[in-house]
C-alpha cells in the first residue's frame, strides 16, 4: 500500500456507519471525543509551536456526512460536539467528508489539492486555517497509534482495528 493516497476515493461514510453515530447520545460522543482529543494533544505538543497565537482561536469542523459539528479551541484544550442545527460560532471553519478531515489531520492528503477539487470548504480566519493546516501536517498524528495509546490495556487491539479501518478507507472500501 502506498504511504499516501492523494488520489484515492475519499468515501462518504455509508449510512450503516453514519446512522448509528448520528443517533448516539451527545454526552457519550462528547466524552469519547474529549478523551481522544486530550490524549492526542498530549502526544503532539509541537502542534502549539506552529499554531502560535492562533492556538487561542476557535476552529469548527463539520463532517458533511454526519449530523455533527466539532468546535476546538487548542489553547484551552477544549473540544465540544454539537448537532449541526446547534453548531456554535467559530473563528474559522472547515467542512468535508469525515474521512477527508481525518486524512488531513494525519497529513495523509494535501489540503490545497482538496480545496482545488472542491472536496473541502473553508471559511472565516484564513490565517488560523493555514496555521492549523501546517501545524497538523508537521505534527505526525497517527490515528491508530494515538487511539491505541488512549485505550489503556486495549491499546494493541484498538490500534490494530483502527489500522484495518484506515487501510480500507485508504483504498476507498469503507
Amino acid at each position: 500500500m502506498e504511504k499516501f493516497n492523494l488520489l484515492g476515493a475519499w468515501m462518504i461514510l455509508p449510512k450503516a456507519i453514519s446512522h448509528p453515530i448520528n443517533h448516539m447520545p451527545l454526552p457519550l460522543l462528547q466524552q469519547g471525543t474529549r478523551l481522544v482529543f486530550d490524549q492526542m494533544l498530549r502526544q503532539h505538543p509541537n502542534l502549539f509551536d506552529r499554531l502560535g497565537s492562533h492556538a487561542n482561536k476557535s476552529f469548527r469542523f463539520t463532517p458533511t456526512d454526519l449530523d455533527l459539528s466539532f468546535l476546538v479551541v487548542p489553547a484551552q484544550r477544549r473540544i465540544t460536539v454539537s448537532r449541526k442545527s446547534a453548531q456554535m460560532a467559530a473563528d474559522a471553519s472547515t467542512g468535508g467528508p469525515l474521512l477527508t478531515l481525518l486524512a488531513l489531520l494525519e497529513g495523509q492528503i494535501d489540503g490545497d489539492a482538496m480545496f482545488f477539487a472542491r472536496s473541502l470548504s473553508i471559511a472565516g480566519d484564513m490565517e488560523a486555517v493555514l496555521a492549523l493546516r501546517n501545524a497538523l501536517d508537521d505534527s505526525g498524528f497517527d490515528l491508530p497509534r494515538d487511539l491505541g495509546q488512549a485505550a489503556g490495556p486495549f491499546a494493541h487491539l484498538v490500534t490494530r482495528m483502527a489500522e484495518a479501518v484506515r487501510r480500507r478507507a485508504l483504498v476507498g472500501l469503507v
Partner: protein
Amino acid sequence: MELICPAGTPSAFREAVDAGADAVYCGFRDETNARNFPGLNFTREELGTSIAYGKARGVQTYVALNTFMRAGSEALWYGAADDAVRLGADALIVADLALMAYIAQHHPQQRLHVSVQASASNADAINFLVQTFGAKRLVLPRVLTVADIAALAPKVACELEVFAFGGLCVMAEGRCSLSSYATGLSPNMQGVCSPASHVRYREDGAEMVSELGGYTINRFAAEEPAGYPTLCKGRFHIADDDGYAFEDPVSLDVMDHVDALRDAGVTALKIEGRQRGKAYVAEVVSRLRQALAATPEQRPALLDHLRLLSEGQRTTAGAYEKKWR
C-alpha cells in the same frame, strides 16, 4: 539533471529526501523568504536537524533568503544568511543584490544561487551577478521558451535551474505588485502573495466567492475546480467580457520538455510548492524522480494524475512552449 524539491516543514523535508530529492530548499519563519505563511517554515534548530538528515543521505539543503531587504532592517536578512551558513546550508538562494554583496563579502566560500525573484533573464544580467557576487547558479524566470534557454545557456558562466512543476506566477517575477495593490503586502518584500490575513471565502448560493483585501476576485460554480486567491488568477469584467485577464488558475508542468531542457544545458529542475503538504511533496517528488529515469513514452502515465493535485486541476507548459506574441 538534479531535482530540487520544496519543504515548508521538517516533515515535508524528510518526505522530499526519502522520495528522491537531490536537494531540498526551505526558509526561516520570517519575512526573509517568499513563503512567509502562518505555521510554515523552519526554526534555526529545525533547519540544523533537517540539514543533518539530508547530509546523512547525500541530499543537499538550499536556504531561500529570496525577499528584498527593508531599509533599516537589513540585520534580519544578514542574520539569516549568517545562521544558514553556520548551520551548514549547501547554498543560499538570494534575490537582493545587497544581500548577495553581503554574502560574497562575509561568506566568500558559501555557494550562492540567484533566486527567480531576481528576475535575471538575459546573459548580461546573469554574467554581471556571476562576476560581481560569484553566483554559481541562477534560477531562470518563467518567461523563456525552451529555445530561449538553449540559446542563453552557452552565453552564461553559471549553472541554470528552471521551474519544472508547481505553481505558476504571472510573468513579472520579483516585480509583481498585484498582491501589494490589494493588500499592502507582497511576496517581494514581506514574503506573502495574497496573504491569508486578507483572504475570505463565502458562499453565495451554489457559488464559492473568494475575496482578497475586501475585493471580490473570483466566483467558482458548484463543481468547478478552484484556484488560489491571487489577483493574477482573478476574474475581471473588461469591456463586454468576464474572464481571466492575466492567467487562468493553472499550474506549471514542463516534464514533456525535460529532454529538451537537458539538451539545452539546464542543470537542475525545481519543484514549486513549499506551501503544500508533505503528502503532496512526497507524491510529486517521487513521480518526477521516476519520470526523469523513464522514457518519454512512459512519462505521461507517471505524471498525468499529478494534474489533479494542481491549482485549477489543470497544467500548462506556460512560456516554455509560448504560442502567443
